[in-house]
């Protein structure tokens, strides 16, 4: 099977478009279509979803007929080490405060680099805390706490 897909980038793009298009089309069935005169909330999204589905299918067909370059390995490690700490930042920012959120974000995401060293990332995290406190809390007056309710503030 794999040998017949000649353009993997097109194949997966097509798959993605087709999947999103059909999902949206199914979801949009719950919304009233209306008429061209008085479009319901479902009209415009359904047209778009149908279009996306169509583009996806063409993309799929094309992937079997034209050659392309391989996608290459997905950098799972970097991706997770960037995205997960960001998500944790969202969890920590309000209840734990800015300092824990920054320390976690900086020290964990730093592992994503090949040149990672604790010697560099710990001072960097400290520096970012001071800097963010000065700029965002003192300077711009954004409503954020250095340490949140979890620490009894």
């Amino acid at each position: 099977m794999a040998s017949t897909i000649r353009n993997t980038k097109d194949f997966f793009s097509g798959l993605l478009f087709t999947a999103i298009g059909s999902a949206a089309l199914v979801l949009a069935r719950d919304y009233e279509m209306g008429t061209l005169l008085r479009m319901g909330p479902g009209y415009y999204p359904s047209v778009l979803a149908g279009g996306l589905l169509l583009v996806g299918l063409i993309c799929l067909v094309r992937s079997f007929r034209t050659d392309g370059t391989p996608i290459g390995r997905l950098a799972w490690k970097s991706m997770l080490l960037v995205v997960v700490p960001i998500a944790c930042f969202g969890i920590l920012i309000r209840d734990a405060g800015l300092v824990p959120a920054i320390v976690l974000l900086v020290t964990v995401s730093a592992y994503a680099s090949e040149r990672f060293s604790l010697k560099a990332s710990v001072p960097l995290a400290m520096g970012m805390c001071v800097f963010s406190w000065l700029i965002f809390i003192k300077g711009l007056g954004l409503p954020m706490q250095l340490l949140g309710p979890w620490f009894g503030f």
Partner: protein
Amino acid sequence: MELLSNLGLGFQSALTVQNLLYCLGGVFLGTLIGVLPGLGPIATIAMLLPMTFTLPPESSLIMLAGIYYGAQYGGSTTAILVNLPGEASSVVTALDGHQMARKGRAGVALATAAIGSFAAGTVATVLIAVAAPPLAELALKFGPAEYASLMLLGLVASIVLAHGSLLKAFGMILLGLLLGTLGTDVNSGEQRFTFDEPRLADGIGFVVLAMGMFGLGEIIRNLEHESTREAMIKHVSGLWPSKADFKRMLGPIIRGTGLGSLLGILPGNGAVLASFSAYSLEKKLSRHPEEFGQGAIEGVAGPESANNAGAQTSFIPMLTLGIPSSPVMALMIGAMIIQGISPGPAVMTEQPQLFWGLIASMWVGNFFLIILNLPLIGLWVKMISVPYHLLFPVILVFCAIGVFSVNNAEYDVWLMAGFGVAGYVFSKLECEPAPMLMAFILGPLMEEYLRRALLLSRGDPLVFLQRPGSLVMLLMAAAAMAVVLLPAIRKKREEAFQEEE
């Protein structure tokens, strides 16, 4: 004479000490962050957006505009010194600029870029002042049908200007439009694609999407290629171009400015197209085309002027029609809305101080760029040499705080993380995120106008062809589409985008 009094009013407000400081601050910060490799103007503006929330509207827009030119110029600096263009429009600058730098003429290349940008910025500012009032007047006559067609034209243009596969760009546009429908439907109050999640009722924030797709996505991609950064020029000297250099850059600057000003007005990020076409124009006109790619000064002067002129004139549709012509302008519109101004033709008449102040500040900003950049070049070189493994955690902190502070919502931070993954995957699949972002902005407006136009015409879709304004725009869109689909031109387009490889 009205022009002069308008500009007078503008300078009056742009030259107050407060606004001068914000303009200077914006240009400085923009350059500072813009020189960092891998950070284009979109990410830079999105990151610095929270800094402007607490300012008065005028100062905040002036500062943001300053950040924009700063980031753009910073990107060129990096392109010249490290051969790492931070954004599409400085890709061509890297071709000859970096070669000049390798031959020990980095200073001259940087000065050429600065002088070209300044000249182009000056002309473009005047052009905006001249063109904006009649355009705004025209826009006031636009009905929903014209607006809907205009937006379609914008979307078609962004497909045409996207890199790589047209089909995938079209798919990304549809995806962006679809994402734009997420949230509460304005007409019926129905929740669309929200999965009963109240935090999605207002739709997805533009900043969230932009920072995720461009900021985080880019960082993940950069980490992948971390070890392949080229050694850089440590020392820059000999800034001032010689007389012969000046002679050679004059023509390219004039042509680049003209080309850039025209293309910048086009919806769909004309600034990128401008720098590409200025480069090929100079190559064609040059008496020694073999020098191009080896460090020809014309190859820096032309595209840089075109790029900057285009960046400036892309404000025209934003200011007069309230329609973004590029993702950066979409961010500016977002900032205006946060400040409580509804963008559109009425801004000029209702808030002349703000409107003309912003225009005048563009010239001031360009002036600051030239006096700031050349003496501070040592600082920029230092910024560029900050190793990436120390840089990206800092950028992540800025992104996280920035997105959180827009609505004080942790949910936005999570969404951004999700879009970061999406941005990375799409870049792996060679699907351009820029057209998607444009579509995301224009989508809800387009639906609104489309529905209104059809309601007014009693459901007759021919209304889009019967109204002359709308017809002209649809014909332009059709022509643009036909042009890229023609095999001969298609090949040319691919060649033009090849040059950046």
